[in-house]
């Protein structure tokens, strides 16, 4: 099998495996390639031999096959099934790891917009079509789209995640090798779909620290500080910091806790819940509040919503001051 293994190794060596999960995906890909090449070679050789040996007029014996046909059938049905299920299991196991995002990773918000990637870091810096990450420092990408479905695809990391409008989706990768790797938009999104290309720049810790110092933050202050300005500008405090706590629930420490709406069991107040609460008006009715929250879609721009969410996440519950929480 060495030539086959060599070919597969050679082919899969073309694309650098620059993320933690890449070697595992390449491993399964290589196994699949070896199995497929083996099957194709065996079937082709077998068919060619049969064509020659049993051509019309040849003297080969045409006696019926001794073994009952159903035995042969049962053999290759079970054989195929077993091999397939092995590949299924491996694929599903690695997929589950890829989808389970380790907690507590630094977050980078990437917003897909028709034909560019709008990248915003936690400390307020903003870039277009470029993502700077540090080697061996896994990063969580919080992905959303402002118009149509895009797909964040970095071939070198074997990572791809569709970005669906109206939905916040997260993915993550652990960049293991320095270098620049291209980002493609894999889901057709219109005229310049082919130009929606970006780059992930993986820097060694030293270079990354230098980049952090050198790159002047494009926006003043951190996302949280800008979020607070938005929070005040749109008068969220007027309802959410009502001393008697009758008009609306307090938002301090809300992020991540559980919320008990009237008729939908227990919902975790994650980014999606907050994002929908601001842009789509709350899906669920919270009992016991006098005001119904208006929808801010078209009023608060999506970038501001991201900053507002960052601010809400930073709101820790002050120890005993708030008596009004339900």
């Amino acid at each position, binding site marked *: 099998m060495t030539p086959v293994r060599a070919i597969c190794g050679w*082919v*899969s060596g*073309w*694309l650098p495996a620059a993320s933690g*999960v890449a070697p595992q*995906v390449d491993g*399964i890909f290589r196994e*699949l390639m070896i199995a*497929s090449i083996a099957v*194709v070679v065996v*079937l*082709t050789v077998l*068919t060619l031999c*049969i*064509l020659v040996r049993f*051509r*019309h007029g*040849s003297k080969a014996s*045409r*006696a019926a*096959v001794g073994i009952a046909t159903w035995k*042969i*059938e049962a053999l290759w*049905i079970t054989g*195929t099934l077993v091999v397939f*299920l092995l590949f*299924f299991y491996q*694929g*599903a*196991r*690695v*997929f*589950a790891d890829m989808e389970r995002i380790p907690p507590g990773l630094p977050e980078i918000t990437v917003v897909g917009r*028709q034909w560019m990637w709008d990248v915003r870091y936690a400390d307020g810096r903003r870039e277009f079509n470029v993502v700077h990450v540090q080697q061996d420092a896994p990063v969580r990408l919080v992905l959303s789209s402002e*118009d*149509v479905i895009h*797909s964040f*695809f970095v*071939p*070198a990391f*074997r990572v*791809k*995640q*569709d970005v*669906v*409008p*109206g939905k916040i*989706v997260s993915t993550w990768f652990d960049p293991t090798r320095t270098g620049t790797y*291209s980002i*493609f*938009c*894999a889901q*057709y999104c*219109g*005229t*310049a*779909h*082919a130009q929606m290309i970006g780059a992930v720049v993986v820097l060694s810790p030293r270079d990354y620290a230098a980049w952090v110092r050198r790159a002047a933050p494009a926006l003043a202050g951190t996302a949280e500080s800008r979020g607070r300005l938005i929070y005040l500008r749109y008068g969220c405090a007027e309802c959410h910091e009502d001393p008697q706590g009758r008009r609306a629930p307090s938002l301090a420490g809300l992020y991540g806790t559980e919320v008990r709406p009237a008729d939908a069991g227990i919902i975790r107040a994650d980014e999606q819940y907050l994002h929908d609460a601001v842009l*789509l008006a709350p*899906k669920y009715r919270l009992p016991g509040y006098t005001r119904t929250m208006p929808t801010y879609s078209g009023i608060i721009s999506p970038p501001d919503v991201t900053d507002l969410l960052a601010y809400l996440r930073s709101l820790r519950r002050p120890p005993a001051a708030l008596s009004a929480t339900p």
Partner: protein
Amino acid sequence: MTPSAVPEPARAAPSYLGGRTTVASWLGTSDHKRIALLYLFTITFFFMIGAAAAALMRWQLAVPTLDLVTSDTYNRLFTLHGVVMVWFFLIPSIPTVLGNFLLPLMIGARDVAFPKLNLASWYIFVCGGLLALYAIVVGGVDTGWTFYTPYSSTYSNGHVMLMAAGIFVAGFSSIATGLNFIVTVHKLRAPGLTWFRLPLLVWAIYATSIIMVLATPVLAITLLLMGLERVGGIGIFDPRIGGDPLLFQHLFWFYSHPAVYIMILPSMGVMSEIITTFSRKRIFGYPVMAFSILSIAGLGFLVWGHHMFVSSQSVYAGVVFSFLSFLVSVPSAIKVFNWIGTLYRGSITLATPLLYALGFLALFTIGGLTGIFLATLAVDVHLHDTYFVIAHFHFIMVGGGVMAYLGGIHYWWPKISGRMYPERWAAVAAVTIFVGFNLTFFPQYLLGYLGMPRRYMTYPAEFHTLNVVSSLGAVVLAVGYLLPLFYLPRSFFRGPRAGPNPWKATGLEWQTPSPPPPENFSETPVVTGPPYDYPPL
């Protein structure tokens, strides 16, 4: 024995081609054989339009950045290629041409169950085709054949409504044909023709008809909802009011994955017919082959989620759909093994239909195996929406579907036209298509692994060499496809006469003169033996 030209047979009865040959007699016919030829001309016309779009795309992709067409035009080209090839060539190809012609003949019937509905389905198909053609002529559509919202319903400025209407109408033709064939197979089988004596092409067309009838309505409602959202400016898939674009994908792929089985199942039936005839041997494991066809049709409805592994569908659903996708590929593998089992210890004649069948065997195997790559969750995350997927479905649709369609056309050409096709030219065409196909689509597997996304009109330079090979292959493939367009029409009028059974094959369609008389059989044949009842070698 090579097909020998038979002396002029005594003209017992005028063939379905003879008799009244005015245009009105053709356009008003309810004879399933004439309707089959009407479909043959129509879908060949649409195949050429789709192929022209493909040629332009391959030309544009020969070089990383070439301004042969603007990006907008390129988007309309690949949408045109997708829509025309899927709905106006591949889905109708074998069922409406070979199926219409052969189903009544193979079961010993005079015609299909509802002859007038059969003609109506052709007219509906032509109306749908004209609507789609009009949409292309006045500007085309740039959403891709998948019409994903919200792009198709809100952001696209192409003629989406016209194209969706064309497909909506063509869908009814598909339902009418499927419904007709199901009732025909149930009700009009010749005496003695039990289910397990049916030729496997009849099984394949029966299973395909079930998918056509049960899947197409969901496409109709999906296009209707997308159309309403586009016209009304608001719709149930609109994320701005809390709708979910993934719901569109679920509805669309609930139709579209069974649709790909509509395209491949009939080819499997044609394969079984050709391989048994040219190895002069009974099919290996008839019951397993019949049940494989039915299980592909049934399981085909359970696997659509593998198109959405990375679309933020839940992980649990991904695991479920991946498992079911592995199950649905087992029957296909069994059929490949059984075809090779049929060849084993046969007496094989290498005529053109068998060349096409062997081409199908090789390319369908590769296509199927790469389907396993895409069903494996972890690998699909990397390969989804890249050229790997393009290569996979072209290996199945073109390497499998079109090869079997051409093999079937050549195999039953003597029955359809009463004359033989030129053997040498046909063999050259088959080999050219096989070589051209591999040159065109095999490099795309590598491109896909390297990460070249699909539907890109320009690409980074590192993909250049493989794209050049693919574009050159497309030229060879185009030549291969043009050859039959020359020698088949010529042989229709001037080919050597073929007797009722030039291949000495079993099957009821070979027991009637070729071209068959309008009422197919002078008296209803009675079937006594099992199918493919070749004398022991």
